[in-house]
């Protein structure tokens, strides 16, 4: 039997091989059936909405939708508000990433240096902070920092100090909650990475006369590079998308929108101001920024030779 004439006399083995060819297809079908309409299509729709004049009148069908090209984007680019929100989002996310990583990494190293019972205590506390839903974390911190009834003001003796009144301090408060929520992931992941390092290398360094500081920076950190890359990228993505904490703690973006980030800004434009086209354009800008970050990450993965 030649491959060309594979008519009715196909052997059993060839048939089973062909079946094997189709197997991954039907196993991926359910995932595709969910993701295409609920994930891929909405992304396309978002792009479409962002080039339309789409407001309350169009939603209710009172006026026909109009294609307006990049007018929504032009409107954004010329609005100082957009630039200040974009700037705030980038700075806020960057600060969160740096603080989360510093805290998480410092505690991961600390975990390797302490007795077992202390490590268990610290891990359990971190787990509890990690597990707490964003919503409840926000409410508890709000209560702790409440103007009149909060414990923090009482301890500091700052009677009647309002933490969300001032832009910077409101961001700092939200940031503290986010770090509290997200450092455990960094700590646990880095700690697992450190534990997996071969001990001989560090011992050899010690014999060669390297101090703990030197061997940490020259050996541990370079060997952990893939793990570090993961926590950095994950943190960037999470911190760039913070929504619940800002929305709940600053009551929808702060006084006069002073604590808006792109995410909340897009939402408010669409659902509070019924500017669906404009909101979608902000959403597209966010997508593009995160896509750029992802592509950098993928390139790093490829460079480090990780097989996908």
């Amino acid at each position, binding site marked *: 039997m030649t491959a060309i004439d594979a008519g009715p006399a196909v052997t059993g083995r060839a048939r089973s091989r062909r079946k094997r060819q189709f197997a991954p297809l039907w196993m991926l079908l359910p995932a595709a059936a969910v993701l295409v309409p609920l994930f891929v299509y909405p992304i396309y729709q978002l792009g479409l909405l962002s080039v339309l004049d789409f407001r309350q009148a169009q939603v209710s069908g009172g006026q026909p939708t109009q294609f307006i090209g990049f007018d929504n984007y032009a409107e954004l680019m010329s609005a100082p508000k957009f630039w200040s929100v974009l700037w705030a989002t980038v700075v806020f996310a960057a600060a969160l990433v740096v603080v989360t990583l510093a805290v998480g990494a410092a505690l991961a190293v600390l975990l390797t240096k302490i007795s077992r019972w202390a490590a268990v205590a*610290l891990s359990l506390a971190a787990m509890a902070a990690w597990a707490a839903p964003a919503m409840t974390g926000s409410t508890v911190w709000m209560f702790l920092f409440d103007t009149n009834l909060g414990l923090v003001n009482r301890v500091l003796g700052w009677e009647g100090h309002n933490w969300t009144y001032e832009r910077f301090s409101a961001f700092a408060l939200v940031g503290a909650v986010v770090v509290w929520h997200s450092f455990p992931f960094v700590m646990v992941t880095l700690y697992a990475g450190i534990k997996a390092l071969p001990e001989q290398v560090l011992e050899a360094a010690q014999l060669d006369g390297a101090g703990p500081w030197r061997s940490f920076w020259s050996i541990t950190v370079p060997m952990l590079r893939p793990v570090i890359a993961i926590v950095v990228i994950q943190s960037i993505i999470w911190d760039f998308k913070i929504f619940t904490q800002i929305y709940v703690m600053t009551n929808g973006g702060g006084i006069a929108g002073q604590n808006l980030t792109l995410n909340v800004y897009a939402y408010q434009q669409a659902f509070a101001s019924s500017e669906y086209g404009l909101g979608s354009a902000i959403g597209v800008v966010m*997508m593009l920024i995160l896509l750029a970050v992802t592509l950098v990450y993928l390139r790093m993965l490829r460079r480090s030779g990780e097989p996908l």
Partner: protein
Amino acid sequence: MTRRIVRDKNVARYLANAFAVVTALVVAFPIYWMVLSALKPAGEIQSATPVPWTFHPTLESFQRVLQVNDFGRYFMNSLIVALAVVALSGLVAFLAAVALTRFRFRFRTTLLVLFLIAQMVPIEALTIPLFFLVRDLGALNTLFSLILVHFAFTLPLAVWMLRGFVAAIPDEIEEAAQLDGASRWQILGRILFPLVAPGLAATSVFSFITAWNDFLFARTFIISATENQTLPMALLVFFKPDENDWGGIMAASVLMTVPVLIFFLFVQRRLVSGLAGAVKD
């Protein structure tokens, strides 16, 4: 000389332990404060001089929350959504993960990269098109709408995580089963599925938490049908312009946090390996 080094080492360890314990206390404090405030009587909650203890613990905040505000119903709603998402997402992700690890086919790597990129998509931005999609389906104000979107949004991470767990199972097991004449269904259901179960548990926790914690979609889709509210929105009811009911907020927060904590402790060992497996084979 050596004795001094040993003593210095002991002192250093002692200090490190002390620092770790203090850190643990600081990190755990908000959780403690939440539980404590939920148990404080109303008078102590409203006092302008709060103290970190109470001698008169009471369940009245819990009673008020559960009876007056119908919180039990919202709790059930959240549970229904989260469990449905876990079941659906787990099953579909399992099939996809097996396909992506056990077979070599064209576009496999492309698909994998797409699953990775999908995790980066700011789903908050998708609320706008999804709102119209759900509206056109006539599914606004239903729990079904929430199940649907979270099913889709938890899939990419679930597939990505399960891949590592499937890859860790040796091929020989399946080959042996195949030689013994097991069908593909039997291999999937009776052999692979039980072996992947621990990984599935870790993955499920993430899916559960995503659905359970969701504030944004609940806020967007459940507009008027208050009987279909989920927990995060119900929590906001206790915030009042004049006087927040902090006792109620804290009691409700405890009720919302407990299931997640239980889940977390349950699978915490596998969580780390799951996340590590999710990122490198």
